[in-house]
């Protein structure tokens, strides 16, 4: 028991002017993302799959080039083939997108974060900036390296492309953008669902299961719906020869994907504000 009689005067602490700022939160989010192993793993897998699979397919194509008939040679899409790995890398970046927010919930870190910075929307915006910039750099790097390596492996006699070939730059840059925006959409899903496994399942289902379901629909209906699917948009962005009939143009497709990501992130942000942490 305390023997203290009169309590000491209340502490009066001098605080710096202003308040905690957005850049402070960006630094904090950068520290968070770079100090867990899952970031290194998912980024590593994104790069390896994104570059490796395209390189493998390109190398095999060249070694079998002489056995291809003329039709196959003419319709061969060199840029798209080198970028095929992006369609696998998208899952790894999606997992990172989910984890940057869901891991905060599963570990309780979110409460430490909001106890230090209670402006949740500002914290979330900082998180989006950090993950967005990181995934943009990783995705574009992967895409460009995959393209150059793939074209190098194709070389003569196989058809190969340069960045100035028709549609090539758009496929490479757009492919990276596609992976990055998909990652941001996954982050939105993670914020809404909050559970790692649940959010990753939803992400994979949208990319893999939804196309199977729509394929079972009557033809015209399937075609109308298919072009809105993220996986279809991805393929259209990468394709430089023989676009599928009825598909959106690549930039329109990317714009639609951006709308998906923004909608998911905005819903996530509003839930983040309203729900108890």
């Amino acid at each position, binding site marked *: *028991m305390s023997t203290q009689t009169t*309590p000491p005067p*209340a502490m009066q602490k001098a605080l710096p002017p202003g308040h905690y700022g957005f850049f402070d939160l960006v630094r904090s*989010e950068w520290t*968070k993302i770079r100090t867990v192993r899952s970031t290194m793993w998912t980024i590593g897998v994104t790069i390896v799959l994104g570059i490796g699979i395209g390189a493998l397919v390109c190398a095999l194509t060249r070694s079998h080039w002489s056995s291809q008939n003329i039709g196959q040679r003419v319709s061969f899409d060199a840029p798209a083939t080198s970028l095929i790995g992006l369609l696998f890398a998208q899952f790894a970046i999606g997992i990172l997108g989910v984890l940057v927010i869901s891991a905060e919930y599963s570990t309780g870190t979110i*409460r430490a974060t909001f106890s230090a910075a209670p402006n949740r929307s500002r914290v979330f915006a900082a998180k989006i900036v950090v993950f967005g910039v990181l995934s943009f750099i990783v995705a574009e790097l992967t895409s460009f390296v995959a393209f150059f390596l793939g074209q190098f492996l194709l070389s003569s006699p196989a058809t190969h492309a340069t960045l100035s070939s028709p549609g090539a730059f758009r496929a490479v840059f757009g492919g990276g953008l596609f992976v990055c925006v998909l990652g941001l959409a996954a982050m939105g899903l993670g914020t809404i669902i909050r559970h790692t496994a649940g959010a990753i399942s939803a992400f994979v289902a949208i990319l893999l299961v939804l196309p199977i379901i729509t394929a079972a629909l009557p033809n015209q209906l399937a075609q109308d719906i298919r072009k809105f699917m993220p996986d279809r948009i991805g393929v259209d962005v990468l394709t430089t020869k023989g676009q599928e009939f009825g598909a959106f143009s690549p930039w329109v497709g990317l714009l639609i994907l951006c709308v998906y990501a923004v909608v998911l992130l905005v819903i996530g942000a509003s839930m983040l504000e309203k729900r108890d942490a």
Partner: protein
Amino acid sequence: MIEAKGLSKHYGAKRAVEQLSFTVRPGVVTGFLGPNGSGKSTTMRMIMGLDTPSAGDVTVKGKHFKNLQWPLREVGALLEAKAIHPGRSARAHLMMLAQTNHLSNARVDELLELVGLTSVANKRAGKFSLGMGQRLGIAAALLGDPEILLFDEPVNGLDPDGIRWVRNLLKGLAREGRTVFVSSHLMSEMALTADEVVIIGRGKLISQTSIEDLLSQSTENFVRVRSPEAAKLKVALEQQGAVVALEDDGSLSVRGANEVAIGELAAKLPVVLHELAPQSASLEEAFMELTEDSIEYHGTTTGGPINSTGAKS
């Protein structure tokens, strides 16, 4: 200063916290006591703006927590041990918190030193024991050198040495004029640390009082009297308005008259006294008595409050 007014939190039909009003003032350690599940943690989360109250209001320094300019420099909280990513190091965890409020990495190292985690600062926190997790949580709370501190069950998982360390730390922080609010379900721990207590049961305020007042208010305070003429003394005491019980061992338990009054009365009668011993309840008993009706999760083997015939001191 922390002020709660009519603070309530309902989860569907369950009323976790109901119409809770209290004030936590600077310069003293205020204990926040209640049985498990009585709403202590929920209340603390509402103070920190993590949970939104269903009704009522709570402020720190007269403001809502969300409106503080430098939250980490103004209020520090240990809400749960090991609320940390298991793959992140202690240093990285503190760094990311420090950066939100523009605090330096040097401050992080200072705190690691203070809580004794310097040697494991770069180890993954997932490998930490509960006690180490508590130390890290305490470091996080102190990081911004805040005037107001909240600790939810800070001694859980600590060894006796660690418990003493926390106790002295809390007292020292209060002596510096800080507001210190510490929850516990252990009255005995609070008796050694706190100057004041806010006691809740089933989410409702039972009492806000100083530790001393809590003891003196308790009905468990009585005077044990032995006398060869117990019957005569009993009648005389009862005439004075005291409540007297004759115990099995022949002693009298007197409530409503203190040892001074009993001694003087015995001299006047006169009656020989063999023993005149004031019995004060331990805080644990005072607490049990207050929360008797509000324990949410009863064990089946306990006998409830200790009955008044047992010798206590």
